[in-house]
């Protein structure tokens, strides 16, 4: 009889030790704690423990503490801002076997990789910061109580959506899937964007996606990654669900187009309803974060994000104008792209080739083993963990500028990781009775057909 337990979230908290330095004031250090039902005493003990570990590791190194491993748990630390620590405690997945009346629990520590789950921590902070600005800025502009409220508001909702057993190397990359366009379409898009930004000077940045792939972005890379993650992980899945239940497309007064607001007025006849519009904070490249309104507009498969100056009052008129201008053009572009991609598609050889690719310079990522429903069935999560390990090795342990690692597992799966000039690719080949030379030939062949414009060392 075996019972399997998946990785679970035991707690998640944010604290700042400077807020309660004196005895008796420890509860002031707590800024957010999940789950709320835990007694205050336990919360204080947990935070005290974290402080002890952080201080201990600081005795030896300036690098902030990253993790604490115990037999049954894994605690991950991330110093989001100076003195502000976010900590996540996970329960290690385990398998319980009952042999002759005795329960035997086998804790599988290797199934949780520090760098993967720390990437999750970092991602949650980035997402919080996108919608709420930094902790410090909230403190200076308002007060500690409003910071606590914001943290509670955001994290209580977000933490329940975390799917911890589906986190893997892609979370570490935190990259963006690009869709390259042909010259004509690209120029059309470029003209359209330029025109739009001239007509609507309040629009600071714009981003265009098609089918979860990035087509155009005016944002800084760091902001783009966070926004892309938000769009592909939260917003778009929510929209597609809505689509099945709402009314058919809204047509505007002048000619019909297929565009409508996702974050913005849902019905352009109704002046009163401005819809849901989020405020976002962009880090950009300056010290201060910039506040903008995020307006999302959709036409067929294309999604356009407009970031409008945050100090403006938004009025309905603006949205009507945007709809009139953007709607038809975006719909046209979307249908063009649709044609393009359908022409490119019949290359089913891609299916056979299992790989993950990442470019550190532009954060481009490509994968053939992740689908919207999870991993393709032929790839196990053990293999992905091995890929994450190899990635870690190539970047930290062996510290190679360019290098390659080939690994063969006991069940005849070969994983080849190549790192060259800021690009990494991990290829999985499953072949019985192959040897190193054959696999190498196969990989060379694949790289030359699919990555022929990228130089990978042999």
């Amino acid at each position, binding site marked *: 009889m075996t019972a399997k337990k998946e990785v679970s979230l035991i707690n998640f908290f944010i604290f700042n030790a400077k807020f309660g330095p004196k005895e008796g004031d420890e509860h002031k250090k707590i800024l957010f704690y999940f789950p709320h039902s835990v007694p205050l005493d336990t919360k204080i003990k947990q935070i005290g423990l974290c402080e002890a570990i952080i201080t*201990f590791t600081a005795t030896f190194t300036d690098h902030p503490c*990253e993790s604490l491993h115990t037999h*049954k748990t894994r605690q991950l630390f991330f110093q989001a801002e100076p003195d502000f620590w976010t900590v996540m405690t996970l329960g290690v997945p385990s398998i319980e076997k009952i042999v002759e009346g005795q329960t035997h629990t086998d804790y599988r520590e*290797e199934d949780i990789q520090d760098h993967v789950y720390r990437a999750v921590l970092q991602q949650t902070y980035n997402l919080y910061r996108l919608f709420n600005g930094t902790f410090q800025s909230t403190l200076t502009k308002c007060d500690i109580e409003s910071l606590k409220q914001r943290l509670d508001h955001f994290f209580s909702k977000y933490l329940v959506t975390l799917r911890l057993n589906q986190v893997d190397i892609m979370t570490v990359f935190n990259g963006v899937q690009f869709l390259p366009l042909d010259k004509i379409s690209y120029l059309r898009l470029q003209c359209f964007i330029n025109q739009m930004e001239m007509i609507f000077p309040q629009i600071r940045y714009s981003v265009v996606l098609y089918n979860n792939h990035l087509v155009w972005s005016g944002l800084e890379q760091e902001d783009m990654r966070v926004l892309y993650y938000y769009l592909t992980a939260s917003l778009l899945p929510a929209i597609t669900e809505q689509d099945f239940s709402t009314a058919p497309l809204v047509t505007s007064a002048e000619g019909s187009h297929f565009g409508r607001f996702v974050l913005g007025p849902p019905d352009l006849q109704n002046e009163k309803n401005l819809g849901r519009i989020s405020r976002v904070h962009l880090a950009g490249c300056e010290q201060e974060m910039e506040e903008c309104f995020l307006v999302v507009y959709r036409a067929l498969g294309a999604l356009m994000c407009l970031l409008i100056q945050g100090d403006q009052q938004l009025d309905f008129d603006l949205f009507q104008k945007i709809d009139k201008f953007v709607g038809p053009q975006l719909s046209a572009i979307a249908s063009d792209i649709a044609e393009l991609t359908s022409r490119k598609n019949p290359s089913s050889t891609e299916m056979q080739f299992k790989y993950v690719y990442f470019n550190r310079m532009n954060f481009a990522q490509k994968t053939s083993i992740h689908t919207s429903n999870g991993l393709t069935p032929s790839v196990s999560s053990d293999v992905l*963990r091995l890929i994450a390990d190899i990635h870690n*090795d190539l970047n930290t342990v*062996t510290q190679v500028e360019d290098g390659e690692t080939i*690994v063969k597992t*006991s069940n005849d799966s070969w994983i080849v990781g190549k790192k060259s000039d800021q690009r990494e690719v991990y290829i999985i080949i499953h072949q019985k009775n192959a040897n*190193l030379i054959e696999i190498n030939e196969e990989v060379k062949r694949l790289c030359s057909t699919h990555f022929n414009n990228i130089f990978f060392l042999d």
Partner: protein
Amino acid sequence: MSRNSSRCSNSSSSGGDKNDDDVLEGEEPGAVYDGSIVVQSKPFNAITTFLQPPTEGDKADSGSVVSDDVLTDDEKNGGVSPELMVNEVPEFDDDWRSASWKKQKKHVFIMSYAGKPIYTRYGDEDQQAALMGVLQTLVMYFSHMAEPRDTLLCSCAGGHKFVFLGRDPLILVLASHTDASQNQLTMELMYVYYQIISTLTAKRIRNIFEKHKNYDLRRMLSGAERQINNLLDATEHDPCFFLGAVRCLPLELSVRDTIAQAMAQFSKVKDLVFSILIAHNQLVMYIRLKNYALHPIEIHLILNLLVASESLKTSETWTPICLPLFEPNGFVYAHISYLDETCNICLLMITVNENLFHTLSNCRRLIAEKLTHFGCLKAIQGSAKENKSQYKASDVGIPEIHHFLYKTKSASLLTSPMYEAPYSSQSEQDRLLSLYQYVHQRLHNSRLPVRLLFHVGKSEALLGRVTSGFELYIAFTPFVSKGAAVNAMDKLLRWIKKEEDRLFIRNSPTI
């Protein structure tokens, strides 16, 4: 003792593993003929579970036999005698929190469950009492106060790893700035723990702390400090430790057989359990009582004892020693003597009977006579001179290979060539060692067992291969092509097979 028709399933195939590439144990180059010489290197988990309780009544309770006059000197000293620390500890400021203290690659702290400092690798442990107090609180929190009860294993911060090992009543902590994995570091802490056990026995330590929770164990450990320091230094330069294998002195088969016969003939004494011949810090021959065997860890502890103690060289020594995996709760007795003037060849006889000194002294004389008569001692000396006991990587005749490690699993023996260019300096050798550690951890750490690893880096290409019979790690020139690497590996395996009689102990008689 018939020889197996040795068949190495891979040595004939070209271009690597065409068929099932697993080489079974007992069929690898260098495999032993009958039984195992040393107990299978146990898997990591088996070693880290608590030591087994005593099995036989007559071997137990030797704790009180250690004469107390060995201890009175130590009891007079409050702490560690400074002279022991001088050679091992580099120059730095008195303030243990100085930058030079922090920069040390590996710190080891040992304290009791009550938080009393016992040992620190760098500095004075009394000064570090506060630090040890923090460590003790952390460990005890998880094992005694957390809900549910848990065990603190390690913490990571950037390139630093802090590994914790709690072995009632001791707590051991390692703070390391190397690339070794958590498992490898925990293994090193286990070695230190076993070193302490080998000085005092597990039972004695438990008893002391049961009666006096605040006992200062340093009073009983002053000699062991030096041994622990030596052990830690050795783990930084020698791959034997993380591979769990013992180096064996290359010797012609005929000479080794003669030695085996001589030793076996005169070791058939009641209560004599092991008879070991060591030369130049490597194993030459090993005779054992049927059904008993030594673990590689215990052999390393014995080697450490020999290296660390100058006084053993002067005359025959009779010393109690605890073998932690053989019998953790009691002492066995070792008769230690050197058979040559230069004190490189050492004969150890281990018995459970404390009164056997004179009998063993006699055995020693007889063995020494026979070995001298047959010229074995000369052969050992000769083999040790001028690169014969250590061969060079270039002797193998494969230019792409710069260095390699080969471990047979059936015997837990290791062979490797001398370091040559480009690994002539200590820092290069240490760098290579950490690379071997990386390959080792990648091959052993994953939930999905990895059989082969090939890594191309800036200064070398590494190949690691694990089969049921052996483990092989090779450092190539970085420009080697995959085809050349695979061919080189096959050639190397064939060479090892050809030389196996000389490189390994094939026969280990039982008495």
